[in-house]
């Protein structure tokens, strides 16, 4: 937090920079102050509110987006550092009105309750399936370990990722 007046004034007065982002396939130019985070830019300047702001300290994963195909917590990413990069958000997962296989699986397997972690969870899982179409349980855990979900206990989410990758849930014991 900015405690002293001169510091705060300096931050307020830092000039905005123009940043080009390719958001879900569309190029957008936005003017941002250096302190503006990617989640703020996406939600407030680009106007896509599907990406959620929760802890704003990189601990919960709700704001996960794909930056040049890699999942990042957009609350810890500065917008000015993303100039010329491709950003994919939850709004970019559908093909028109058609849900992706992963989105369908999330609905089918009880991966969604309150839905607040869902956009970030979907983005982390999408990145996973793009680099590993048939992930095993350990790989799924590793890919989704940064995304907190308080509602489902993760059971539905794991089932959905397995189903979307054409794997049935492995039977245990």
């Amino acid at each position, binding site marked *: *937090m*900015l*405690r002293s*007046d001169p510091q*705060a004034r300096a*931050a*307020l007065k830092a000039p905005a920079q123009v940043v080009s982002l390719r958001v879900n396939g569309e190029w957008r130019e936005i003017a941002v102050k250096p302190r503006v985070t990617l989640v703020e830019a996406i*939600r407030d300047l680009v106007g*896509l*509110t*599907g*990406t*959620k*702001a*929760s*802890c*704003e*300290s990189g*601990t*919960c994963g*709700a704001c996960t987006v794909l930056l040049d195909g890699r999942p990042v917590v957009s609350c810890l990413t500065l917008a000015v550092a993303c100039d010329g990069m491709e950003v994919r*958000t*939850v*709004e970019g*997962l*559908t093909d028109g009105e058609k*849900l992706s296989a992963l*989105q369908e699986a*999330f*609905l*089918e397997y*009880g991966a*969604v*309750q*309150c*839905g*607040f*972690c*869902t*956009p970030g969870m*979907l983005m982390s899982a999408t990145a996973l399936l793009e680099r590993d179409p048939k992930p095993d349980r350990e790989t*799924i*855990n590793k890919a*989704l*370990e940064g*995304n*907190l*979900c*308080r*509602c*489902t*206990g*993760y*059971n*539905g*989410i*794991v089932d959905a990722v397995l189903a979307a990758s054409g794997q049935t849930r492995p039977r*245990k*014991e």
Partner: protein
Amino acid sequence: MQSELKYVGKSVRRKDGPDKVTGRAVYTQDVRLPNTLVGRILRSPHPHARIVRIDTSRARALPGVKAVITVEDTKGIKHGFVETPRYPPDQEVLARGKVVHVGEEVAALAAVDALTAQRALDLIEVEYEVLPAVFDPEEAMRPGAPEIHPSHPKAPSGLANVGGTTATEWGDVERGFAESDYVREDRFDCQLRTHGYLEPHVTLAQWENGKLNVWTSSMGTFVKRAKLAKVLDLPQSSVRIHKTYVGGTFGGKIDLYSHEYCACHLSMLTGRPVQITASREEIFNAYRHSQPLTLEIKTGVKKDGTIVAQRIRAINNAGAFRGSGVVVIFLAWGFTMIPYRIPNLKYEGFSVYTNNTVRAPQRGHGAPKVRFAIESQMDMIAEALGIDPVEIRLRNARGPGEKLPNGDDTHRGNLSECIRVAAERSGLLAKFGRDRSQPPKGTIRRGIGIGVSAYMGGTLIYPNGSGVIVKMNDDGTAIVLTGAIDIGQGSETVIAQIVAEELGVTPDDVKIISSDTDTTPQDIGAWISGMTYVTGNAARQAAGNAREKLLQVAAEKLGVRADELVAADKVVSHRLNPELRMTYREVVASSIAKRRGDTIIGEGFWRTMRDEPAHPSLATTRGRWTENYAFSAQVAEVEVDIETGEARLVKAYTVHDCGFPINPALVKGQIDGQVSMALGHAFMEEVLVKDGYTLNPNWLEYRMPTIHEMAESEDADVITEQYRVGQPYRTKEVGEGLISGVLAAMGNAVYDATGVRLRSTPFSAERILEGLRDLEFQKRKKHKEVRA
């Protein structure tokens, strides 16, 4: 005539699902209004201090600051979680005269942007005179302890800081103990745990043309409206709470919060929308968490394990205002008396003010702590008597048709059956004691344990009942107006299923308009475990009412009696002559033509126990509570590493009786979520507080279960109720009662794995190691004594 159920009892997909997987779902933080100001709250840096002086002039003078308020700018109207003659509202929306916990709201302001608002907060000067503070409830109760608030006038004299008491007894406990074959007394404690809703607290308020529009993350819009209108001194018709999706609550968003009031007041002062969002750090430091409860339990039993007498003393560390603290000490009695028969009981509960943050309800509202304590002691008793954990529970468990001490009835609820099924499914008795009698190689020990619980649903708290309206459209589809708020539990889906079933349309034909206080009827809200029962029955009635009207209009048109007709698949047809038929579209058109434009609207209302007074007494427990008790037995298998002390839940078995499951997939979702939350309670989570300051105000240091901790969760539903179209039905509780038995089961399983009996949660690695070292020490001491 009973036909096969089409939509109810089926795992219909969530109505809100498509919006939630595409980012279209609008949560409060997603609502955007032009010209919105950013609101911020100035909070107390002290746990207990007199406010000598507040000077806001420098903040007001800062360019970009539009309004600053302190308590002097308010009307001084108090509010409380409980508002009864015995427990009148006790808290103002901003601190007056003194602060009583770290993070208490002292002033609020609105500015053009977040940085300006933050700078302005730093410019508010507050002079405090620090007062002695007290954080432990038993210290706070002692005469001469620093007084946070005067004790309740009806509290036992001489005790300090007692905000409220619950006292009840039946039979003769002392005689009961004398007649018992075995008596033991134990003390149990638990930690402070936070709700962990992912969506932070956030409120947007817009004052326009004498109307206050509010969007806020809550669990019941009608409760919020009532409380906001009251503290703002506005008629309820001038306050509209709009629908938004809610990103998790778990009990933590039902109270009125200062930021909600401040956003409204600041908007009224500036004429511009004001949004206040709590940061995660603020939520950890200053907002309301659970209620750490200390329980002293003395139990006397016969040789066969039958409970003869029980004496319980509960002390609730209730925080700096009354909050729901006085409810928890009442509920702790309730969660004691539902599952097991207790012929002689003496219960006393104390809700004690301390200089900690105020407490809120949290999923289970005391039940996890109560069941952990009682179920742990049940296992200790069983071991002492040489009987197994299933037998002692079956000896005492309630079955169908039992009268509870408060006059309520268990109806078809059956805890014994839940216990039997849980034991059988999990193979409990075959696995129990295995690793203790024959320790395997290596450091991993496996244990199994059982716990039971019971929960009430749909009890009477404001606004007590729900109404639902079903509007027929010209094409035969329906719009449902309901105040029910979907916090993730799936209320919109369940209501659509019920309406579809009763009305003879598909769930896709039903569109839900919900939780808007101006356009939907009053609703109990998602906070007393009764929405599917109360609002569900109102929906059933409303749809039934619309169906009756459809049949009546069709009967007139077709020239037959209405009771000769049936309604299904958007067609009204004659029972015996299916040729005689009208589509719903035709019926609605006929109604409009014949009845001078009257279309068809159905209405329904529901309340638990219509003829009973509003609620039981929190002080004496007298009065009926509900007609719906859900019972459950849960088994946990855990693994403990005896080298590191680390424990984890491997598998949970939940056997429950939720009445009739309207949507089994949603029921399963509630179970899995509660198992996960319970394992967080058991092994991971604790808000660490020192002298009133939170030491771990973030999710790095406060660890919630991640995907790595996911436990296998298996469940079985002991279905005790039926659903019949056109008849009231009983669904029971499933959203918060299932966090308790499994928590207790984990404690018992840790003991089964290691021989370490923990009397307080969480079962951290440190505590388990300490227990193991203690066991080792005892063993050596015994060995030495034998040798000597």
